[in-house]
């Protein structure tokens, strides 16, 4: 057991898998010699050498296309897209190539790869470097989509993603890189498609992802301490596959649903979860399901504006409190 940053967990997770399987290779911009712009892959180049850890040109389409071709023919590539906003320049691979090739070929084509990318706000980088774009991927049939909130989940879910035979888009939150957590020694392998109840509760279910998880937990503490509301906090972790059972069971116990989404509102993952719960657990609900999201606007650069725009602990507390009529 050791304390590790989320950032270092990325490198440890990749190293664990590269050590295990010589077919795991890693490519991206400035990821090798420089160790990545977020310093999340420091040491891999030294440990695994220039054939397995490779710097690329600024050619995101080539990066993802090459990852796909390698995956189709026997490697297990991990590709880095530096900021998740840049998925927009290589979206054809995400939307049209990775997820459809197996289906179109009637099962012939395999695509076991992982795209890691720095997601989310908090660094005051402005509208083109701060987005939460997990819904860009969740909406595409054939992908798997993961977003860990803690160092141990980074390692375990990254390992699961690398071992998974399908294309997995792996969202690391930039504002979590510096956060720390306890991580057991030895190999860590988690399971995709499993949500985690991080705080059991009986009055409301709060579903959160990535950076919103610590905020939801803090909000739950305040709700409990100051308002006597006992909220259950679920870290959804994996958007696809989605652990609907954990969510539906939780709502079955608490009878109220809140989602905390960093993405701008329209068509966020919370909408999908609300639509599932509203359909399948309508009679379990004692009141309206409520989404707490970033408003549907581009992100401002200014620090205090950026802090205002994302769901805050306070906004979560106030929303749940008000909705529960306390």
């Amino acid at each position, binding site marked *: 057991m050791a304390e590790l940053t989320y950032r270092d967990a990325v490198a440890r997770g990749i190293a664990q898998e590269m050590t295990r399987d010589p077919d795991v290779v890693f490519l991206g911009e400035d990821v090798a010699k420089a160790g990545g712009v977020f310093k999340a892959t420091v040491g891999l180049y030294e440990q695994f050498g220039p054939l*397995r850890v490779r710097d*690329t040109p600024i050619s995101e389409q080539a990066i993802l*296309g090459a990852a796909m071709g*390698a995956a189709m023919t026997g490697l297990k590539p991990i590709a880095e897209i530096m900021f998740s906003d840049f998925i927009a320049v290589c979206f054809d691979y995400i939307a049209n190539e990775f997820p459809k090739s197996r289906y179109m*070929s009637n099962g012939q084509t395999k695509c076991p790869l992982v795209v890691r990318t720095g997601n989310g706000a908090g660094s005051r980088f402005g509208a083109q470097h701060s987005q939460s774009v997990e819904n860009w991927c969740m909406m595409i049939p054939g992908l798997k989509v993961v977003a860990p909130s803690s160092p141990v989940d980074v390692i375990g879910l990254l390992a699961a993603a690398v071992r*998974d035979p399908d294309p997995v888009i792996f969202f690391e939150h930039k504002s979590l890189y510096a956060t720390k957590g306890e991580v057991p020694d030895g190999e860590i392998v988690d399971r995709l498609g499993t949500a985690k109840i991080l705080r059991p509760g009986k009055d409301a279910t709060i579903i959160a992802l990535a950076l919103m998880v610590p905020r939801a937990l803090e909000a739950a503490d305040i709700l409990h301490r100051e308002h006597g509301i006992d909220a259950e906090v679920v870290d959804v972790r994996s958007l696809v*596959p*989605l*652990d609907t059972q954990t969510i539906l069971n939780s709502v079955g116990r608490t009878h109220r649903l809140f989602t905390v989404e960093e993405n701008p509102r329209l068509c966020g993952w919370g909408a999908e979860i609300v639509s599932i719960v509203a359909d399948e657990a309508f009679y379990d609900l004692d009141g309206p399901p409520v989404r707490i999201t970033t408003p549907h606007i581009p992100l401002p650069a200014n620090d205090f504006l950026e802090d205002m725009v994302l769901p805050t602990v306070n906004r979560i507390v106030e929303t749940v409190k008000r909705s529960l009529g306390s």
Partner: protein
Amino acid sequence: MKPSKQSTAAGLNDDIGEAKRLALYRSQVRLRDAEQRAFDLFLQNLVKGTSHLSLGQEAIAAGFAEAMEKGDLSFCTYRGHAHTLARGVSVEKVLGELMQRDNGLMRGKGGSMHLTSEEHGVMGCYAIIGAHLPIACGAAWRAQYKGHKDVSVAFFGDGTTNIGAFHEALNFAAVWKLPVVFVCENNLYMEYTPIGDVTAVPQPAADRASAYGLERILIDGNDADIVYRTAQKAFAKARAGEGPSLIECLTYRHSGHSRADPAKYRPEGELEKWKEHDPVKLYRERLKQFGVKEDVIAKIESDIRREVDEATEACKAAPLPPAEILTTDVYADGGWAWRN
């Protein structure tokens, strides 16, 4: 790899050899007849969706495929019937897919634009312009990394040279010295627009080779021998670890862009001019020059005719795919479950 030199009846220097030459002819006739049949079936309303024929461009598919070894990989476009057939996939499986029957290459799930037969090295046909060029780089990267000797070949059209992915792939392949060969089939048109109207250089691929530190290669794509020799050279270079090649093959499609296109935008006489340089006709004459007897040629042609006829009947008799396959093979577990 070295072509054996043989002397022929006509005394011509035959670096290709009769066996290979017959194979090149056989392949071209097969592509021609199978696609002609696809067109007939379309007129009978038996081909569903769209389809993009390579009639007139057969020498490229045949020449490259004959130069490939087992294990070499083809990455094609929506205009991929010819390349798929040339790698040895049966006419039945290709026509079956065009007719979206259960005997089709992908049981009708992919359709004519996405023919894939990994066992034949056909790693897919891609319908988004340019997408497969980087993908071919990845397959080549695997070969390089694993020390395999296979070559990845990406086929694409003239119009494809103007999309970003072309540029990224060419640079990437050159920098990583990948065993990949990029084959531009310049048939003078994108869909309906002449390539010259939308391209800054006269030869869309060849005139850009230098931008990637590559040799300028521009060949007659309707002469299967020239194609074959050029392919051999590029493959040898790739296998020797000397990196990618970019080859521009001049050719012409006899039919419209896709089944919906009567190709009215062509200047008068253009098609006729190119039909005089028809690769199949040209190669038939070539065989004769090399002393191949008419009955040998006729036998090839009738064998092919029979294969295509039998395939047609088999496809007409084939059932539709069962409804269950609708939701299979989205994920590697065989299913489509995105939730529990």
